[in-house]
Every structure is written in structure tokens, then in C-alpha cells.
């Protein structure tokens, strides 16, 4: 979504990610005008207008109120990653099959890849970045870890780590929902989170540990 990436040109942060995005944003900026002109020539100007239509969106993300302007087709996952740079939430399959994009919306775990961001108007979203502080604003780099994050480290609940943010968000919800009473129940209620490294046994140990420890999740 090139139009969001223009914002980043103002960013003082010169990380590799931002550099890459700046490059692609410039490419898009260069390419857009002739495409639009061509569209108008072929009578498609309405479609172009439609394509760049932005709609207002107000929601709370990790405790911080956000006032945004987005295209209707932007998913919550793409909004988090591409516009707000909350890249902890991962894009795995982008089709609701792997669970890597799991976040909490009003306390319920959902697949952010199948959630149109505009449908979260007025909602409170928690991502892995906001988990440790229970969704309060603050510096995620210095925040203490959530008990589930600690347990995943203790039990080696990951290998490559790509599915881990989704696993942890799902695991926290699994306990809150009351579906983490036995390893069998955890397997069933965590089945929406796929781990290609196969860390399942350790993930179950981590969840059981947190559940038994009785810490507030």
C-alpha cells in the first residue's frame, strides 16, 4: 500500500526496514501518475478514485487511541504491520489457516489477516507488543515479559520463532477462555496455530505451566 509508506519518508529512523520501504514507496510514487492518466484516458477514472478512497478509522491499539485514514480493503494485519509498524504480528498464510497473525480484538483472539480493519471501528486491539503491559502504552523494549512469554522461553516453545507471537496471543486467550485444563484440551483449542518447526509439545508445556502457576494472564 504505497500511500501509507510516504509517511515513512518523514521518519528519522533509518533502519533497514524503513530504507526498503522508502525505496518501494518512491518506486510507487514514480509509477502512479502515468497509470492514473492511462486510466482516465480509458474511462476508468472512477475506479482510480475508488482505489485511493480513504475512510476514517478510530480504534485503540495496545492502549493507545489511534485516529487513522485507510483504504477499505486494508486488513487489520496490514494496518498493524505496514502503517503502524507493529511488525510483531506476523503474516504467515494470509488466508486464516496458520494463526501467525492472531491478535486480540476486545479481548477475543482473531485472525487479523481476515479482519478488515474498518470493522474494528471503536474496538480495542492488543498485539504481542502490547501484551506484557496488558495493553497499556509505554516502551515495549523495556517492558517486563508477560508470564506466557517467560514460559515460552523457559520451555523452549519455539525454534524459528515466526509463529510465536501468534502462538502466545492464542495461548493467553486459551487460558482466559477456560480451555487450557488438560494437554488434550489445549491441543484442540490451539489447533488454529500452526508451527512448522513442530514445537507443539513444548508449547503445550508452556501453557500448562502458566495455567498451573495461576498467574493473571
Amino acid at each position: 500500500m504505497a500511500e501509507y509508506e510516504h509517511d515513512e519518508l518523514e521518519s528519522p529512523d533509518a533502519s533497514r526496514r524503513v530504507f526498503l520501504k522508502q525505496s518501494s514507496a518512491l518506486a510507487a510514487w514514480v509509477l502512479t501518475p502515468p497509470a492514473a492518466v492511462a486510466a482516465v484516458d480509458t474511462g476508468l477514472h472512477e475506479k482510480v478514485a475508488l482505489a485511493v478512497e480513504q475512510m476514517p478509522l478510530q480504534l485503540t491499539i495496545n492502549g493507545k487511541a489511534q485516529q487513522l485514514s485507510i483504504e477499505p480493503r486494508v486488513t487489520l494485519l496490514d494496518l498493524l504491520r505496514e502503517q503502524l509498524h507493529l511488525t510483531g504480528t506476523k503474516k504467515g498464510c494470509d488466508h486464516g489457516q496458520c494463526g501467525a497473525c492472531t491478535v486480540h480484538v476486545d479481548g477475543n483472539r482473531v485472525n487479523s489477516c481476515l479482519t478488515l480493519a474498518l470493522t474494528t471501528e471503536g474496538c480495542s486491539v492488543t498485539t504481542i507488543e502490547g501484551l506484557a503491559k496488558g495493553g497499556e502504552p509505554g516502551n515495549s523494549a523495556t517492558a517486563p515479559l508477560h508470564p506466557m512469554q517467560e514460559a515460552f522461553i523457559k520451555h523452549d516453545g519455539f525454534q524459528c520463532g515466526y509463529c510465536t507471537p501468534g502462538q502466545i496471543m492464542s495461548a493467553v486467550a486459551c487460558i482466559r477462555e477456560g480451555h487450557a485444563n488438560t494437554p488434550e484440551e489445549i491441543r484442540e483449542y490451539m489447533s488454529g496455530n500452526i508451527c512448522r518447526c513442530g514445537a507443539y509439545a513444548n508449547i503445550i508445556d508452556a501453557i500448562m505451566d502458566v495455567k498451573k502457576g495461576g498467574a493473571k494472564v
Partner: protein
Amino acid sequence: MNPFQFTRVTTPKAAILAITKESGTYFLAGGTNLIDLMKREVIIPERLVDINKLPLATIEKIATGLRIGAMAKNSAVADHELVKKQFPLLAQALNAGASAQLRNMATVGGNMMQRTRCAYFYDTSMPCNKRSPVQAGPDKGQANGPVGCGAIGGINRMHAIFATEPTGERGAPPGSTDRSSKCIAVHPSDMCIALVALDATVNVSGPKGDRKIPFGDFHRLPGNTPQKDNTLLPGELIMSVDLPTNQFADHSHYLKVRDRASYAFALVSVGVGVTMTGTTIQDVRLAMGGVAHKPWRLTEAEEFLKGKPATEANFKQAATLAMKGAKGYGENDFKLTLAPNSIIDALKTATKTA
């Protein structure tokens, strides 16, 4: 994803007005299927009407039983005390479907409206009679990919064994002359198997007013128009689903046979509800998933079992009756054996004679 216009509505009346006004408009509820189909360009809407703020998520007791609002989330229904106590078959079926995340998003109405997961339907480079013409963009009105059925003679392990031919048993539309199969896709829902078994009624509202649709008539067979999954009229909105009070709670079972233990679509599923007096079956409801274009009620098998003792011999005979008219398409031939065995197994569990 292709661009589209987005409208949010807060009343059913506004929703119906918005969808009636212009073609190419779709309701957006949980979005777990529609957004996926839009990403794959199987469906390309011109407009979405967001109905998530409609006040239709209530689950309440009514004189005849239970009323479940169309916007109630699948997880909320499955965890509801009245559902768990009085309609455990529905709770079991819901929990057998999708993942915890998806059940938190998916609604009752949306679950009923979900499309088949036939791989040929999803791949727009493959032939499919079920995909509708393109509804937006420069290709508007044109076929969305090649026509025909890729699954007939193709990879059809997941596909239907009942009523796939327009003239087949229970499949003939009136006045049909074209007798070739157009579609062998199956309806993917678990929830709907429970709802058809439990004699649910669908309450809909539309531009011409309100009406009730018996659940068994809500979904349709492919016939010569497999693009149409259901009998909703243009502009109609599902408001709620009513479940009549029953005595099946003590003898209910939803058996789902699938390729992995969780989070997979059914190869075959069976929903059973029984009332017993001693070892005799007083009343029974039977429905199957993964075998037809619609939730498949087994009325003949039900009639046979009523008043009979709950024995394996009777279950076998009921299963034989249920399989009348079944036809395999090659890779799914195994369902001709799996389906009757699943019926017997589910009946044994439900009647506690296993």
C-alpha cells in the same frame, strides 16, 4: 484484493436497503470466508455492507425453544449455557469446526452463507460452474474463469456422493432437461449439520417483508445452477435461527471424520439426536456433512429406526437405507464405505451402545 466501496449500517432496515440498491453488493459479517474469497478473486464485490454493528447477536429463550441471533459468534453459541444443556449437538458441531480464532469471528448467519472449499471453485484458472460472473471492475459480467466442473474426473477426494445429478434422487429441479452433473462440491459447515438435524427455522427479512425458511429448505442442491447455494431471495438478510425444544440432549453426538484431529474440513460427519425409552429408540434425528451440496438429512433412516431397539443390526440397516442413491466419483469412492460406517458409529455413541 480489489478495491470496493464500504458502508457501515446499524439497523437491519438500512442493511436491506443498502444491498437492494445496487448490484454487486455483499453483506460483510465475520468475513472469515468472504475476505478470503476476495483475496483470491473468486468473489469481486463492488460494495460491502458491514453488518457487524447490527443488534442481532442475542441468544434467548422463546416459547418454542431457543432463538439465536444471526450475528451471534460461533464461539458465543458453542459456550452458551442453554445451548450446551439443551442442544449439545449444536455445541459439539460448532466446536468441531474451524479454529478458536475463526469461531470468535464467524457468525451464525455467516456460517450458513459460507461457500464450498472445493479447490476448483477457489482456483480461478480452473473450470468451475459454481463461480458467479465477475461483479466489479473491467471484466464485470464476464465469467470468472473457465466454465465446467474440474472436480468431475479430477481431484475429488473431498467431494459429494449424493444428489450430484440434476435427475438424481431428491435432486431434480422441475422442468429440467439437462441431466448432466454440473457440480459435485459439498457444503462445508458443521454447524448446519446440527441445525438441519434439530429442525431449525431460519428467520429472514427482506425488501418484501419477513419470512421463515425451514432449515432443510435453506440450502439447495446444485441442479443446473450451482452458483446458488441457498434459497434466499435478493436483498434478504438472515435475522435469527430458531431451535424447537427437544428431548435429544442426553443422546446427542456429532462425529466428524477428517484427515487430522482438529482444524480440518470433514470427509464425512454425522449428527445424531435420539430419545430413548429403555433400549428402544422413540425418536431420532440424523444428518450428514461432507456428502452433498447441502446439509444432508437422513429421513428414511430416521423413519426406519423409530420404535426399534438400539442394536447394531438396526443401525446397519438404517445406514444401508441412508446410502441409497449414493455415487462415487473415483477418489471419493471411499466415502461410500466411510459414510455408512460413520452413521453406525455415531448412532452407537449417541445411544450409548458402543
